[in-house]
């Protein structure tokens, strides 16, 4: 489905993505993890060329995205859903219009677009918030609108750029629920950038750990987090252990000194 070879992106002297390679199969959920500033978001944004890569290739559905013309790129982007960390909703438009916008611009008749948008919003539990504008909704609801907007295209690939990073823990859950459903029950192909360990553990088919723009470890969650081969993996393992212990103690009614 997606094959990234030797992808590199520099910002001046800063190498954000350094010879990055990755393959994502159809229906696979790959979680991209790593410390802040390691190049995760840049990597995921280069896939639909929201950020132009310097070199390397990105093959999606058999075509090299880096070679596409402007018109071809726009057509390809419609096949790739993108969920932003900060939702990136159009503030002057309602939830329904936000979802419809892309569809209508893609040439979908307004009625059909409306239907699809309503359906997408219903899927994320916002059927009662169709006319609400972003500033009338919570962060979780806004992100769900963002997810609905991406889903409305029925994309072949979903890219998630830290979708819960801007949400408080309670709102995170409602987003994760949607994501889990999409991953587990709809078999969507997803590449997710997140710091949510639980999501990675429960949903990811594969974990890719990055540091300083490079892939440092890659594997299934049990392999990466139980028997990590990299220092980053080791840190994640320790974090999981810490969280588990903390949760257990908390549940046992004890407090950590």
């Amino acid at each position, binding site marked *: 489905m997606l094959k990234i070879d030797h992808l590199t992106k*520099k*910002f*001046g*002297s800063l190498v954000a993505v350094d010879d990055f390679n990755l393959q994502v199969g159809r229906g696979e959920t790959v979680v991209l993890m790593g410390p802040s500033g390691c190049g995760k978001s840049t990597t995921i944004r280069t896939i*639909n060329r*929201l*950020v*132009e890569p310097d070199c390397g290739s990105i093959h999606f559905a058999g075509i090299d995205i880096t070679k596409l013309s*402007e018109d071809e*790129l*726009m*057509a*390809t*982007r*419609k096949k*790739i859903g*993108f969920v*932003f960390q*900060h*939702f*990136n*909703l*159009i*503030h*002057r*438009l309602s939830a329904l*219009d936000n979802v*419809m*916008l*892309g569809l*209508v*611009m*893609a040439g979908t008749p307004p009625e059909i677009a409306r239907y699809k948008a309503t359906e997408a919003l219903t899927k994320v539990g916002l059927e009662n918030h169709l006319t609400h504008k972003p500033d009338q909704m919570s962060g979780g609801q806004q992100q769900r609108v963002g997810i609905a*907007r991406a889903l409305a*295209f029925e994309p072949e690939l979903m890219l998630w750029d830290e979708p819960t990073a801007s949400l408080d823990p309670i709102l995170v859950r409602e987003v994760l629920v949607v994501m889990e459903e999409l991953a587990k029950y709809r078999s969507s192909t997803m590449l997710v950038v997140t710091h949510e360990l639980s999501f990675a553990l429960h949903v990811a088919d594969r974990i890719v750990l990055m540091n300083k723009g490079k892939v440092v470890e890659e594997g299934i969650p049990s392999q990466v987090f139980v028997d990590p081969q990299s220092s980053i993996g080791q840190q994640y393992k320790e974090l999981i252990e810490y969280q588990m212990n903390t949760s257990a103690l908390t549940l046992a009614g004890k407090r950590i000194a």
Partner: protein
Amino acid sequence: MKKVGKYLAKCKRILTRSILKNTFNRDLLMLLIVSIVIGSLVSSTVSYSANAYFSKTLASLVGDYGEYDILIQVREEMKEDSAIQIQKIIDDTFQGARLKEGPTLTGKTNFFIALPDQYKTKQTYENLGKIFGSIPGGAGAGVLTEPRLTIRGVPEGAKNMLMEKITQMEGVRFVFRDGSSVGVIMTSLDKTAAVNAQIKSILNSYQVVEISFPVGAEPTNPIRLGEAIANDMQTQLKAEFAQNVSIDGKNDNMTYMVSTMMELKRFLVAYASQVFISPVAGIKLTKGDTVVFQGSSANMPTVGSSPDRGNVIVAVTGIRSDGVAEGTITQGDAALLSHNQGYKLINNIIGDYVGTATYQNPRQQLGSALTETTKLVGQIPGFAQDSSNMSQIALSALDSYGSNIGTIEKTMQNMQTAGNAIQSATSGLANINTSAIQNQLDSSSRAMGGLINTLQVVRLLSPDVSSSIDNLSSTQRGLDQIKTGLNSLDHVAADARQAKSTIDQVVANGSSTLASLREFDIAGAKSNLLTANEHLAQLKQLDVPLITTQLTYMAAAAPNLKDEEISRSVAVLDQFIDGQAIPGQRIQILTTSAISTDAIAPIVHNQIGHDNVSLYSSALGVIEPNTRSEVYQLLNEVKAVLAAMAAIIVTVLFLVLDHTAVMTVIRRKRLVNKTKVRGWRGMAVRVAITFTAPERQYGMMVGAVMLTAIFVISGGGIPYLPWFGVPLIGAVLGLLVANYAEKISPISSEEVMAGESLGMSFDEIMREIVVPSGRPGLLQKLNSRKVKFR
């Protein structure tokens, strides 16, 4: 060729894609066109409104173009009486004229008079002062008739010439003296340009050369001097035209009257007695001092008292280098200076004795000269006769001069021949050694004497030798005679050589003298003598009695003035001359423009006797801009400036409201892939990017195009700003706005990125996301037709 074809194809593609298709670029083009149209309308409206207001105000002040002919200004408080009087004058003088009361400005009320056509004449306009002179309230009258040209700066003396030339031009109705200027009324407005050009041509073909004198070096009679310089320019420089135009008087008669007075003054001053006061030791007189002499008074001036009428008073006018004071008599006469002790007069009180005076009385000298001349004239007939006689004698002498020279020449030749003969004759003598012969003769004589002595002894013995002794004695005497003869011969040779030498010298001197005599121009001398004879003949024909009578009369008529009278007359003349407007410090000569001041300078210097003057050249006159035209021109400029200001404001507004969002999007696109460069290269890049960043280029281009178009359409203009300054200002405005575009119109990069992620094109993003969220403006209005999600 292939490249050009490719380039054209590319341009066509861009044009098709950007303009012809329904793209946001076409929206921008439409926006630009609509902005220009609206901006031009706004600018034009603002400028035309202002212009209309000011024009209306101006028309209410001075009437429409050509509506009125005469403007009369009176004091505000007298306007009612003035209006009545003006109306009366109009009724009496200009039947059919129309009077209108105009606005009152700064205490002056304006009245406008529209004259019937038949009254629009040179005579009327040159006599406005007289015609309206009776209006109370200190009225001033001026000409408003249009079309009109006014020429100022024309020297008074050149006005007539200029007016005559202008009057002959086609399209000129008449020319008149408009105060110090020359007014030209034309037959119609369309003739103005042609007449203007012709007048300019005349003004350029002449120049006024102004000769300025420093204070203290003014000419005695500038009028006379100006005329002399003008004459010299014509004769020496072959100037086609040169005229003294420095007369500023109202009319020539008065000017020449003053000129005459100046000459009179000069005449009087020339005949005033010059008094020379030699100061006593320790006294120093200065210019301006006054010295009193006894004159006809019975007593010597008394120290401490005031002078009386009989005293002679002398004003010191200068001090010579030897200390002697020169002065003129202000009271009394030089003839009364028999008592020549002078006393200084201070504040009309007689002071100390200062010195003795001598004087020269030119009048007395003139009388004497005339008397002597009369005597001389009486001698003329006798002198003429004597001279004539002498001339005849001289002519006879000249006639015989030639033959005399010939005789002398012959004599010289004879003498030369004689000398040669003498030389030839005595040359044999010169070869004889007379001394040796004399010595031999002397020796023989002495030997013979010894023999004789011997024989006389022998005769005692033998008386037979007596005869021998006698013979010998006789021989000895013969020898002595020969010796004596040889001596004489020697003298003859010497005398002959002397004679030859003398003859040679005489011949040489004679030849030299003859050469000199031959050089004498006998014919010329004769001719001169004949001419002299003719003159003498004329002299003889003189009416000597008449001349004598006239000289006697002149001697009697020579200024019979006292010095006091001269001084007072000069003072009166000075008062009169000073009261006239004849400039003493400058002379104006009107001449053709072909002559340079450098060429004129020597003539001026020669005439005035020094070079302490300045020469300037200026145009004959200047066509004065028509005040009304100037005001309208000013209004047009104000209108253009207002249009320009409005255009600038509108451009800034459109740039801010409509284009900053576009600039921000362009900037964002640029920054997405921005590569940071550090160091001096980074600084250079940052400086370069100030002008080359795409959003700034866009701003400069839009600003330049918009402002230039609005300027052109609305007739905007800024004084001293060249045409290329307008797009430059527009570009600068665009650059400034682009610099602050993101602050003015911040756009949500997240929204734009969302649109991009949804596969929306740039046009769609602009129409659906950026513009609707941007500042309300023309672009938003135009976009509302295109936007799908309102």
